[in-house]
């Protein structure tokens, strides 16, 4: 019973994080691309003038997509056409089951491992599920009865096949080092230090493997520079061209969900997962009081800074728009002040006298926070790359996959095997 | 024959040829001119056509000079050019140059001439031009703008020499000279719009065409007028499926450069509200729109029930090919030969005269005779139709209006009307088939001289209307006939083979002035 309950809670947490990240990512994509291109980006949609720098736009988008007409073109394969977006989205979510997002949570003396399903073939599961995602795309592209969508689907498949191999080979190098297929083991192994000062992260001991894996991950998620299945300029948006309304929204969300999966995998396999470098759990628990006080103090300081900035803006831009938008800086300053006051109140509770149960909880929270932080960074990295690099031409894509990455992955595997055998 | 040199080319002309025409041949284009007109007397007033003749001290006007043996003429020398420029400059001194609102713009002699001989940097410009009356309605069809007139006197000569009515004259002298109608009169002869055609500028404009369309937007199709048996050659000016005006086309053998005013109105029937644009079938006592498949089913039904025997009537307004094919179709459907004919022969309703207009308003009556079809007058037609039992086919004619006793004769029988307008016969018919009006199809017409002339398709048919010969051929095929023409040329060959008058004539290559078959020319002696 307990197992079921905790599993459900963990799943709920994972889902909340992922689905919560999707709108944020969409926002980051828009705002980030705007800032990269010296634009302002979304800043219009607002609720009573509160715009949160464009964060309200995803809400407006969702509402729009919800109420849009669901157009189904003539000649589609009805079942597959309807099924495809669900499949894509569902498969995107499946991978999370095996990704550990923290060490353990200590509740009433029992330690609950923070992973939904700690499979001993975790990595194989990841590979298996990741390649399933293409099925949804192929179904959608084929069932839409449109040559553009079909071309998009075909591209997606061949791209998947080409990069899946390098990805698997790159992972095998890592497996040789970590000596386990279980993701929790892989993560735990990265908590140690190499030669006493370097975190023993995957990227440190398998640098080539990390690069190959990340490149393949870009390809598998159809993100620029590998977004040929969408190819707006030649395929007028590719496999989801014929989808509208919520079906399109599912494709759209699946893309970002995949982004989060890929980021989580990269973080887990090569960047230490939930490990905080040089700050193992034992240290956190020993110094819990001091750490917490420090964090709270930092929080108060940041809030104060934010409040000051917002107040300055409020006084400078008084009456700039002549509507609800004028209230925004003042309101934000108020919220910052309130948050700061909350931090102060927490400081008044003498956080430096925290007990052992609290210390363990703090360690767990920090570790989960580290994991989420890494995931968010890699999500941003995906976005950042998309707005920096141009799209590959199709022959370049194939060339890179088969003639560059595959030999490199093989070489990496052989070298790793030899080194592991010798050491 | 006289030999002379024009612009370095040695050419031969018949004695008495005007130098103007000789220059037209030599140059490939006419000399600049306003007052010269091949079908009017020579006035020599505009002085634009001056050429240099060696041995003459001054330039001379070509229109009033005849060719002489050994003449050496220059039409493109600098002196000639300069003269034309100066004459134009003079014409423009008091000209209003209101081209934007002038209906002539685009086909204006002054504009065309100026493009070639303009000075552009004007040497004479005065701010107080002589003002004269504008927008004067001088007759039921013509508007005069005295300011724009270049006093070429073509219009005056037309009224004096062609119609001999003499309504117009030039009044006053010098820069006050102006065209006007004689006091108490109007320009109301039956050919008044020809003055508008020959006016080289926008001084005379047509009340009907005025402001309807800018002329440069119009497309022209050569055709013939369907207003009467004369068959004047015309140009159908149309744009985007609408005909805007008819203009005479020069054919010295038929109409010279002219046509009558009534004939110009015939374009209106093409766009009348009563045009048929879809098949109509009588259902529950009322004519209702139907589709072609429904119409074909109705035709087959009527043919099965009431043909043979039946009766068939065709109008002399249809083309030669159509009349022949229709008669053939009627025979194929089982109509007895005695019950196939034209008609109803109307008393000549036109106001004939000795110039162009025929009293006979049917453009193709001669063709009926060529095809051996009789044309009974109204009451006789009704009697003949009454005698023949079964369905009645009416093609193009309107016997319900023109033949007394028609309604009684066809009472209780199926009437099939093939036509273009919702006339009285169509209203009383059971099956109405929409076909093409005269400007919407090609066809051959035989005028009162026995001259075969081609009428050409200018615009598209309205709605579901069909091309006549194609419909007739389709019906012929549906009736199981062996010989069905597959194209218009094929149909023409077939017609030529059946008409004795056309023996040995190739209808595919008619000369521009039309063709009077030798048999006809010898037999009739020709009335023209």
């Amino acid at each position, binding site marked *: 019973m307990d197992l079921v309950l905790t599993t459900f809670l963990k799943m709920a947490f994972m889902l909340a994080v992922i689905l919560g990240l999707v709108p944020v990512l969409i926002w980051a994509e828009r705002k980030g691309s705007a800032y990269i291109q*010296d634009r302002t980006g979304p800043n219009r949609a607002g609720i009573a003038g509160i715009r949160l720098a464009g964060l309200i736009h995803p809400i407006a988008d969702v509402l729009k997509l919800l109420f849009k007409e669901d157009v189904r073109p003539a000649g589609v394969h009805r079942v597959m056409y309807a099924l495809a977006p669900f499949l894509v989205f569902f498969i995107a979510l499946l991978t999370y089951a095996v990704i550990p997002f923290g060490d353990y949570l200590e509740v009433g003396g029992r330690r609950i491992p923070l992973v939904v399903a700690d499979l001993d073939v975790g990595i194989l599961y990841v590979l298996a599920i990741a390649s399933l995602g293409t099925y949804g795309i192929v179904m959608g592209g084929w069932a839409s009865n449109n040559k553009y969508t079909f071309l998009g689907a075909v591209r997606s498949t061949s791209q998947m096949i080409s990069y899946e191999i390098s990805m698997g080979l790159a992972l095998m190098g890592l497996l040789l080092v970590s000596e386990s297929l279980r993701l929790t083991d892989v993560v735990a192994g990265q908590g140690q230090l190499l030669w006493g000062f370097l975190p023993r992260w995957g990227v440190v001991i398998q640098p080539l493997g990390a690069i190959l894996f990340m490149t393949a991950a870009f390809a598998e998620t159809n993100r620029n520079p590998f977004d040929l299945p969408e190819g707006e300029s030649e395929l007028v948006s590719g496999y989801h061209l014929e989808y509208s309304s919520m079906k399109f929204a599912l494709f759209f969300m699946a893309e970002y969900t995949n982004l989060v999966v890929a980021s989580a995998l990269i973080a887990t396999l090569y960047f230490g997962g939930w490990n905080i470098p040089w700050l193992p759990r034992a240290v956190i628990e020993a110094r819990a009081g001091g750490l917490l006080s420090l964090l709270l103090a930092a929080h108060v300081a940041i809030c104060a800074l934010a409040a000051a900035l917002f107040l300055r803006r409020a006084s400078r831009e008084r009456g700039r728009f002549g509507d609800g938008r004028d209230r925004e800086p003042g309101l934000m300053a108020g919220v910052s002040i309130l948050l700061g006051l909350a931090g102060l109140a927490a400081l008044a509770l003498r956080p430096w006298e925290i007990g052992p149960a609290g210390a363990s909880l703090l360690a767990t929270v920090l570790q989960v926070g580290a994991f989420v932080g890494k995931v968010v960074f890699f999500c941003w990295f995906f976005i*950042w790359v998309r707005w920096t690099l141009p799209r590959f031409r199709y022959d370049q894509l194939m060339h890179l996959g088969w003639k560059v990455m595959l030999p490199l992955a093989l070489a990496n595997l052989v070298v790793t095997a030899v080194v592991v055998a010798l050491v | 024959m006289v030999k002379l040199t024009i612009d370095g080319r040695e050419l031969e002309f018949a004695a008495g040829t005007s130098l103007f025409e000789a220059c037209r041949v030599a140059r490939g284009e006419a000399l600049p001119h306003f007052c010269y007109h091949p079908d009017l007397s020579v006035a020599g007033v505009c002085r634009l056509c001056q050429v240099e003749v060696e041995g003459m001290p001054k330039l001379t006007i070509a229109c009033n000079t005849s060719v002489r043996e050994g003449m050496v003429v220059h039409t493109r020398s600098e002196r000639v050019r300069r003269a034309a420029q100066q004459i134009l400059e003079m014409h423009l001194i008091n000209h209003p140059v209101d081209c934007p609102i002038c209906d002539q713009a685009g086909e204006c002699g002054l504009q065309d001439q100026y493009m070639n001989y303009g000075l552009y940097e004007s040497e004479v410009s005065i701010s107080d031009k002589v003002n004269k009356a504008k927008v004067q309605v001088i007759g039921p069809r013509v508007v005069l703008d005295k300011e724009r007139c270049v006093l070429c006197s073509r219009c005056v000569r037309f009224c004096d020499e062609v119609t001999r009515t003499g309504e117009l004259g030039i009044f006053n002298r010098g820069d006050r000279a102006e065209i006007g109608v004689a006091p108490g009169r109007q320009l109301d002869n039956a050919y008044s719009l020809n003055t508008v055609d020959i006016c080289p500028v926008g001084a005379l404009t047509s009340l009907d065409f*005025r402001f309807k369309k800018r002329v440069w937007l119009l497309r022209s199709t050569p055709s013939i007028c369907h207003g009467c048996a004369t068959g004047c050659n015309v140009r159908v000016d149309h744009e985007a499926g609408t005909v805007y005006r008819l203009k005479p086309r020069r054919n010295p053998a038929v109409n010279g450069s002219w046509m009558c005013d009534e004939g110009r109105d015939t374009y209106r029937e093409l766009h009348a509200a009563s045009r048929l644009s879809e098949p109509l079938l009588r259902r529950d006592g009322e004519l209702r729109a139907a589709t072609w498949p429904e119409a074909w089913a109705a035709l087959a039904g009527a043919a099965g029930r009431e043909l043979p025997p039946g009766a068939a009537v065709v109008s002399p307004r249809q083309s030669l090919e159509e009349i022949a094919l229709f008669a053939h179709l009627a025979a194929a459907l089982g109509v007895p030969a005695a019950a196939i004919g034209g008609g109803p022969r109307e008393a000549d309703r036109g106001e004939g005269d000795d110039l162009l207009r025929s009293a006979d308003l049917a453009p193709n009556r001669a063709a009926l005779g060529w095809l051996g079809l009789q044309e009974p007058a109204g009451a006789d037609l009704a009697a003949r139709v009454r005698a023949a039992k079964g369905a009645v086919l009416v093609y193009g004619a309107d016997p319900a209006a023109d033949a007394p006793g028609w309604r009684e004769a066809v009472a209780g029988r199926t009437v099939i009307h093939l036509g273009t307008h919702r006339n009285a016969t169509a209203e009383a018919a059971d099956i109405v088939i929409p076909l093409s009006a005269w400007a919407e199809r090609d066809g051959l017409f035989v005028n009162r001289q026995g001259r075969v002339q081609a009428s050409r398709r200018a615009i598209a048919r309205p709605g579901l209307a069909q091309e006549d010969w194609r419909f007739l051929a389709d019906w012929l095929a549906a009736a199981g006939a062996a010989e069905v023409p597959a194209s218009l040329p094929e149909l023409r060959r077939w017609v030529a083979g059946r008409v004795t008058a056309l023996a040995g004539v190739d209808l595919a290559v008619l000369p521009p002035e039309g063709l009077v078959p030798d048999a006809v020319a010898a037999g009739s002696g020709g009335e023209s």
Partner: protein
Amino acid sequence: MKGKVHGYGGKMTLGERLYLGEIFRGLGITIRHVIRNLLHTGDMPTVQYPEERRAYSPRFRGRHRLMKREDGTPRCVACMMCSTACPADCIHIVAEEHPDPAIEKAPASFEIDLLRCVYCGLCEEACPCDAIRMDTGIYDMAADSRAKFYVDKEFLLNNTTDGTR
């Protein structure tokens, strides 16, 4: 722009062919833009339309208007020069007789299909009467049906932002 620009088919150095270094250089460039824009939000060239508008040159061709005579009737004489010149074939004029013989011709109707118009200004240039102008400066047109972009004489006569000129 610093750095080498390669023509098509140009030789790349080994470093460039390894991609990674170049990719990180590119990432550096883009992140610099992000940081600069984050720190100086006010400096962005974006125009906050519709609160702010770019100033257009007085020669800018905006929506058309028809000029009036002193008595308020259209200056246009329905000569069709504009509709003849129009490459988009979007001016539709029906002429009528003007009661004053000195004017003679006037437009009974004058319609422009603004959706077909390509704002080339040829109509303006063709007009012998300076009756049609495109100097309203209006460029942001919106309507909820195509029919509303098919504007008539009344609209064009009263469609002006600067009174009479």
